[in-house]
């Protein structure tokens, strides 16, 4: 890192220690599924939007998705107001705990550190006007598997020495209204699922178990998919001709243990599906630590849309 302070455009905040996973994300990459390019984007899009909202940013501005924390730390080279939402990763500013779901000022030389998850799994750190990062196919979302996006256009997470810069200069000073803002899931939470047509291929017993039994979030969980463990679900189909996979699709491979396909899922696949979690349920699931118990609760597409549009209204 250069000790010479150059002009403001080149200073920013610098990664001093890399945690397990911090990725530049925006709302995601859309209209490219037919190229075989995945959607990507902030997994907990609700917390992500709140982070941008707090600074008065456009809601899909590029921000950081920080998973687990695990010692990730930054030092700032210039004064900046940032917003932090989502999981409580025991974030500290020069050793002092930061208030959750709020913006805060960072002064030159101050150090921001993320330690261990205490509630939730992914925190979102927004920057004035959004992060500077190369745009690929209309998005700054970073997808490791596809080597697309990120600071160095290789899809890699943040590493020591990376310098983040941002677009804006005068962020808003906003507070999340009482009773609103991100909610981290607790064990036993409900995940609304819109049932798909392949549901008919599952046995009655499998369907009863799917919706009347708690599922445990497995530690085999990432931005591509989250495995749930519980009773084995069986049906008449073991594989199907590969077809497009929507966000939140709950696919059931031959071992009967469902996998919820998340933002970085493959675009097409060939396992039968129960249906798809709603976008709100996907955000919830993305914040569940392994061993969290969840329930799949069927909801109609129109009810799910009403709930979704209501959520979108929070930011108007």
């Amino acid at each position, binding site marked *: 890192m250069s000790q010479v302070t150059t002009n403001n455009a080149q200073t920013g905040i610098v990664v001093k220690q890399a945690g397990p996973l911090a990725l530049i994300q925006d709302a995601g990459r859309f209209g490219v599924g*037919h190229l*075989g390019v995945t959607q990507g984007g902030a997994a907990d899009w609700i917390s992500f939007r709140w982070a941008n909202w707090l600074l008065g940013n456009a809601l899909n501005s590029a921000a950081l998705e920080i998973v687990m924390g695990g010692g990730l730390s930054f030092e700032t080279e210039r004064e900046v107001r940032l917003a932090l939402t989502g999981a409580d990763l025991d974030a500290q500013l020069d050793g002092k705990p930061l208030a959750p779901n709020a913006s805060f000022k960072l002064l030159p030389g101050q150090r921001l550190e993320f330690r261990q998850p205490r509630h939730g799994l992914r925190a979102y750190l927004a920057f004035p006007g959004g992060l500077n990062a190369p745009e690929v196919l209309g998005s700054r979302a970073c997808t490791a598997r596809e080597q697309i996006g990120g600071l160095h256009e290789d899809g890699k997470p943040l590493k020591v020495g990376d310098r983040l810069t941002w677009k804006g200069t005068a962020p808003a000073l906003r507070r999340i209204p009482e009773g609103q803002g991100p909610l981290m899931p607790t064990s036993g939470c409900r995940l609304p699922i819109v049932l798909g047509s392949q549901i008919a291929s599952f046995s009655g017993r499998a369907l009863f178990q799917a919706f009347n039994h708690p599922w445990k979030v497995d530690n085999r969980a990432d931005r591509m998919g989250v495995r749930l463990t519980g009773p084995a679900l069986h049906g008449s189909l073991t594989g199907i001709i590969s077809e497009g996979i929507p966000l939140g699709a709950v696919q059931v491979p031959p071992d009967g243990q469902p996998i919820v396909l998340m933002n970085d899922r493959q675009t097409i696949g060939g396992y039968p599906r129960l249906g798809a979690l709603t976008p709100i349920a996907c955000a919830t699931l993305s914040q569940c630590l392994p061993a969290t118990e969840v329930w799949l609760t069927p909801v109609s*597409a129109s009810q799910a849309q009403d709930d979704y549009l209501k959520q979108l209204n929070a930011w108007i």
Partner: protein
Amino acid sequence: MKVRIETAAMDALMVRLFDAIDEANMAWVIAADQALRNAFGNVLIDLVPSYTTLLLHYDCQQLAHSEAMQLIHKALSGLTPVDTKAGELHDIPVWYDERVGPELPLVAKRAGISVNELIKQHCNHDYCVFALGFAPGYGFMGLVDESLATPRLKTPRRKVAAGSVGIADRQTAIYPLLSPGGWNILGRTNVPLFEHAKRGDPLFRPGDKVRFRAISRAEFEADGGDTTPMEERP
């Protein structure tokens, strides 16, 4: 063809046209793709065609689920197949060699033919591009001659080199970028599939035809091909 529309997610519908893989279906899938793109315009978020289906993701801020269903029905009524000759024919030079195609002997042995005969047979067919998926620019192609059909490796490789040309059952494909994978690898090409996809302009599109052409190591190298053997890669 019979159009069936199924709920796939809160804001996604599965348009099912067929129940089996057949090259002849592609003329309909492509026609449906064009019709749906035209009908939905900016209400369309994503449209992912595959072998027998199209997954349509629409903007539910502009359209309700039932309205989206009606719009699909309307868009596909009176659909006629596109001219399959309209698809491009791609000539793909491949360096078939055991160093970059470790399953050449295995596939040849299963088919009861020599490696040279296997290469000849793999090149002696215009494969249809059925779908793009798995990775940016990755085209699922087929159908490989029944005698060459080989199941996926029992244990997938952690790293398959970019440009690797492989077979799985009766399908064949090229890995656009370094990725994990379980297909039987026969050789390597230097065509920049990934770079094309990243620009939003894929080299292969569904309905296109692909013909592989065997080239020598010297030709592959002259084209800038990476000759690093598969197993030596980091």
